[in-house]
C-alpha cells in the first residue's frame, strides 16, 4: 500500500521535471584546498575518553575510561552497555540489544572496549567487526547525536554530514589534534551504534546509509579546508551566530515554542530538531509525535537543510569534487496564503514566500533575482519562461531571508486532477533548478482527484527523494 503510493508520487514528480536551462552556476576554482593545496580528508581521529553525565558532559572530578591499572569503566560514556552509575536510563539493556561480539576476554560484560586512553579510531571504519576492534567513530557519534527512531531520515543524514565535517575540522585544526568523547566536541559512546539493533527492529541501516555518501562541507571562499560544523539540539525562532562566517544566525521559523521547540544548546549551526522539522514539514521534530503543527514548507533534500543552517558553504563528495550548485541556491522558509488542497479551475492564488539565500554569493539588484512559478500537470506547464514573477525586495547576502510578496499563480481553467505549483528563483533568465538545486513544490488537486492522491496533497508538498 505504502510503496504503491510512493510509486505514484514518483511518477507524478517525474512528469513535473522542468526543462533544463543553462545556469550561471559554476564550480569553485579549487576543491577543498588551503593555499592552493588539495586537502585529503583525514581518516582517523584521536579521542580522550571519559565517563559522561546524562547531558553528554564529562563528570567532575574527571574519570577516564581506563585508569591505567587495567581497570575499565562500566559507566555511560565509556560504553553504551553501561551497568552502573547514577543515571542509567541511557544504558543499553544487553538482553534487548544483544551485543554483536562477546565481552572482551577477562572482562565482566561489555565494558569500555579499549585498553588505552586516549584512543585513535577510524572516522569511517567498517560496519563489520574484525574481532574485538572498534574503528567506527562516526557510526557511534551519529547513533548518539541523532536517533532514527525519532528523527526523519533526512535529518539523520544531515547529522552524519555535519558530524563528519566537524570531525574533519577538528583533526585538521592545528590546535585540536586530540578531542574528547563529550558534548564539548561530539558525544562518542562505544557500542552506541550496535545498540540500535533490537528485538523490535534494526535501526542501524538508516545510520549505515547516512555513512555512505561521505559528503562534507567546505567553506567558501577561504580556507580552512573544512567548515566548523557545530550543531545543537534546538532553538526556537532562529539560530545564533557563531565563530566563523559559516555560522551566521539564520531565521528558523519552523521551530516554534508552541510546537515543541525550546532552547537547548549553543544555537550555532545545524539545529538537530530543526533539521527533522524541515524534513517533515511539521513543527514537531519527532516522527512518532501524535501532536502536529503543520508547516507550509518541507524540504525534499538533505542538502537544503544543511545549506539553510551553514552559510557560505560548498558540498564536496568523497572524491574531493564540489557538488553543484555551489553559488546559486535558495530555500523557501514559509509560504503564506497557501491554496487549499483542492483548487478551483481558473482561480488565482496570491502567495507570499519567505525566501532565503542559501548559496555562497550575495544576491544584489544586478543579479535580477526574482521568484517565479510554474503550474505543471503531466508534461504541461504554465509560465515556463518565468514571465510572471516577483522581484527581490532587497539585497540578500548569504544566509539572509526576505519576503517576496504577491506572487499571483493562476490555475488553468481547463485542467482537472493532480497538479503542482512549482516555485523557483530566477537569476536573470535562468531558473536555479536548472543548475541542480531544488524547487519548492505545492501539490494541488484541480477540481477533483482520485481519493488516493489526496493524502499527498499536503501543505508544502511532499515529493519523493530523487536523492537524499
Amino acid at each position, binding site marked *: 500500500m505504502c510503496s504503491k503510493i510512493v510509486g505514484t508520487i514518483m511518477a507524478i514528480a517525474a512528469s513535473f521535471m522542468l526543462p533544463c536551462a543553462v545556469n550561471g552556476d559554476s564550480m569553485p576554482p579549487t576543491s577543498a584546498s588551503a593555499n592552493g593545496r588539495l586537502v585529503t580528508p583525514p581518516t582517523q581521529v584521536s579521542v580522550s575518553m571519559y565517563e559522561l553525565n546524562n*547531558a553528554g558532559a564529562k563528570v567532575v*572530578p574527571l574519570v577516564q575510561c581506563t585508569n591505567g591499572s587495567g581497570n575499565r569503566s562500566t559507566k555511560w560514556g565509556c560504553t553504551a552497555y553501561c551497568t552502573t552509575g547514577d543515571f542509567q536510563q541511557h544504558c543499553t539493556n544487553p538482553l*534487548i540489544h544483544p551485543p*554483536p561480539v562477546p565481552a572482551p576476554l577477562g572482562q565482566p560484560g561489555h565494558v569500555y572496549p579499549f585498553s588505552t586512553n586516549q584512543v585513535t579510531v577510524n572516522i569511517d571504519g567498517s560496519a*563489520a567487526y574484525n574481532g574485538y576492534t572498534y574503528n567506527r567513530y562516526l557510526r557511534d557519534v551519529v547513533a548518539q547525536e541523532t*536517533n532514527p527512531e525519532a528523527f526523519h531520515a533526512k535529518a539523520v543524514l544531515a547529522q552524519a554530514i555535519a558530524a563528519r565535517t566537524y570531525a574533519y575540522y577538528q583533526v585538521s585544526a592545528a590546535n585540536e589534534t586530540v578531542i574528547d568523547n563529550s558534548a564539548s566536541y561530539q558525544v562518542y559512546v562505544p557500542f552506541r551504534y550496535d545498540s540500535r539493533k533490537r528485538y523490535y527492529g534494526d535501526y542501524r541501516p538508516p545510520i549505515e546509509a547516512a555513512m555512505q555518501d561521505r559528503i562534507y562541507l567546505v567553506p567558501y571562499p577561504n580556507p580552512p579546508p573544512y567548515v566548523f560544523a557545530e550543531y545543537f539540539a534546538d532553538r526556537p525562532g532562529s539560530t545564533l551566530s557563531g565563530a566563523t562566517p559559516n555560522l551566521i544566525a539564520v531565521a528558523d521559523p519552523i521551530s516554534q515554542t508552541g510546537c515543541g521547540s525550546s532552547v537547548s544548546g549553543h544555537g550555532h549551526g545545524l539545529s538537530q530538531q530543526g533539521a527533522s522539522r524541515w524534513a517533515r514539514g511539521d513543527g514537531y521534530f519527532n516522527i512518532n509525535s501524535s501532536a502536529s503543527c503543520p508547516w507550509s514548507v518541507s524540504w525534499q533534500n538533505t542538502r537544503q537543510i544543511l545549506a539553510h543552517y551553514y552559510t557560505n558553504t560548498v558540498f564536496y563528495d568523497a572524491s574531493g569534487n564540489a557538488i553543484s550548485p555551489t553559488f546559486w541556491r535558495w530555500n523557501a522558509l514559509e509560504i503564506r496564503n497557501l491554496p487549499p488542497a483542492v483548487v478551483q479551475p481558473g482561480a488565482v492564488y496570491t502567495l507570499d514566500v519567505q525566501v532565503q539565500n542559501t548559496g555562497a554569493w550575495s544576491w544584489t539588484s544586478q543579479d535580477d533575482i526574482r521568484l517565479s512559478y510554474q503550474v505543471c500537470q503531466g508534461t504541461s506547464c504554465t509560465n515556463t519562461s518565468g514571465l510572471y514573477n516577483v522581484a527581490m525586495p532587497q539585497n540578500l547576502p548569504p544566509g539572509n531571508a526576505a519576503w517576496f510578496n504577491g506572487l499571483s499563480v493562476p490555475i488553468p481553467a481547463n485542467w482537472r486532477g493532480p497538479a503542482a505549483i512549482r516555485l523557483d528563483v530566477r537569476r536573470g533568465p535562468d531558473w536555479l533548478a536548472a543548475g541542480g538545486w531544488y524547487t519548492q513544490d505545492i501539490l494541488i488537486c484541480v477540481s477533483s482527484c482520485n481519493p488516493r492522491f489526496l493524502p499527498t496533497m499536503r501543505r508544502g508538498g511532499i515529493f519523493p527523494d530523487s536523492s537524499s
Partner: protein
Amino acid sequence: MNTRHGPVLLGGALLLVVVLAGCGPATPTPAQPTVGAPPPLPALQSPLPSPTPASGPPYPTIASPIRLPLCTPPPPPPPEALQPSEAPALEDYVFGEPQVILTDTAPIDIIGWMADGRNLLLARTLPDRPRRVIEALDTQTGRIVRYAETNLYASDVAFPLDRGRGVAFYDLGEQQPGDIVPPNDLMASHGPGQVQPLVQRFSSLSTARTMAVDPHSASLVRFEQAPGGPPALPPQAQADLRVLSLPVDPYLWKYPKYFPDRVETGYTGDEFRTVVRPDGSLVAFISDPYLFIYDTTTQTACELDLGVAENGEYRSAWNVEWSPDGRYLAMLSTARWPGNLLNFTDLTIYDTLTGVLKHANPSPREYVTTFSWAPDSQALTVLGDSYMLDGVPLQSLYLVNALTGDSVPQLGDQLFGTSGNHISWTSDGRLVSMGPCLGREDDIQEMAIEDLKWHICLIPVDIQNH
C-alpha cells in the same frame, strides 16, 4: 525541636486518612491476567553479523496490558493541614562552612549515614585493582571500618540497612551458561567479615522482573503476580530488609507511550524501581516514562501523569524519594526521546495532600542532578549545574521549599562535582554530608580541571528562629 515536629506529626495523622484518596477513585483490585508465551519474533534483517536469538525476547511482553486510572486529587484538606505554622522559611536554614573529612584521587561515593548519625557509609574505588570497598567512616574520630569489598563492575547501588545493622550492596555473581552479562547478587554486611548473600542472581531477568529494591527504605518489593513469581527469600533477607509482597505485576500496567506498538525502549530505565512510603501505605513504581502509585491498603493502583514538557516529549522520572513524613514524592525528571541526551533535568514534587505537581529548577543551566530531603520534610537540598569551566559543568547548592517550589542558593561560592554526587542529612538535621566537594569558586578557577579530586565534606546546619 518539639515545636517544629509537632505539627508535622499531626499533619501525618491527617495524611493517613487523606492521602489514601490520592490514588483516585476507589477502584477494584485489577484482575491480573497471566502472561502467555511470548509471540514469535519477526526474522531479523541485519546486514551485520551478530548473535541472533533463537527464541522470543527474554523479558515479559504486554500480552494483556491493564490501563490504570489516572491519580486524582483527594478532597481539599483543611487549610491548617497545608501549611504547618511552625515550618521554617528557607532563609531560616543556615549552612556553615564545608569541612573536608576525606580526600582521594579515586572516586568516593556517599552511601548514607548509619543510624547513629556519626558513621558515614562510603564506597571507595581502589586505584590499583578492579575492586570497590564499602567502609564506615567515624566522622568524629576518623576511624574507618571496612564492611565489604566488591567487584568494581557490580552495580554500584548500596544502602544502609535499617536500624544501623550494616549495609546492603551488590556484588558480581557467578556467570552461568546463557548469561550475556554476569548477574548481580544482593549482599549484606553487618561488619568486617560478616558478609552474607540476600538474593542471588538478582539482576537476572528471571528475578529482576519479579522484585525490586528500594534503597531509601531498605525495602524489597516482591511482585507476586509476575510470571513465575519472585523467588523465595532466605531468612537473612527477611531479617535485613523490609519485605513487601504485593499482588501485582507492574509490567502489565505499562501501555504504549513512546511507541505506538510497544512499551519497551531497550534501555535499563525499562525496569521498574520501587519507592516505599515511610509508613508503607503507598509504593511508587517508576519505569521510563511511567509513574504508578500502589495503595497497599486498598490494593489499588493509579498512574501519576507527569505530563508532556515544553519540548513535546513525555516527562519521565528517576531518583524518586518520599519525604520523611510521607506527604511529598520528590523526583528528578526530564523529557526526551529515549536514548537522547537530556536537554534539562529538574526537581518535580508531588504533593499527595493536594494532588499538585510542582517543578523546580534553580540551576542556571537547567540541570538539577541530585537532591535530598531535610528531615523536617519542609525543604530539600539540591545540586544543580551553575556554570561551565573548561567544558565541564560545576554545581552549586540550593535549598528548595517543598510546598512552594521556591528556592534559594546556599554556600554561594562553594562548588561541587557531578560525578556520583550525593547529599545525605543526618536524622537530626544538624549535618549534611556532601560529595564531591570541590572548594571555592576562585580557587577552582586557578586549577586545571584534571587536578580536581574527590573530597567528602560535612556541612553543619542550623535552623534559626526555631
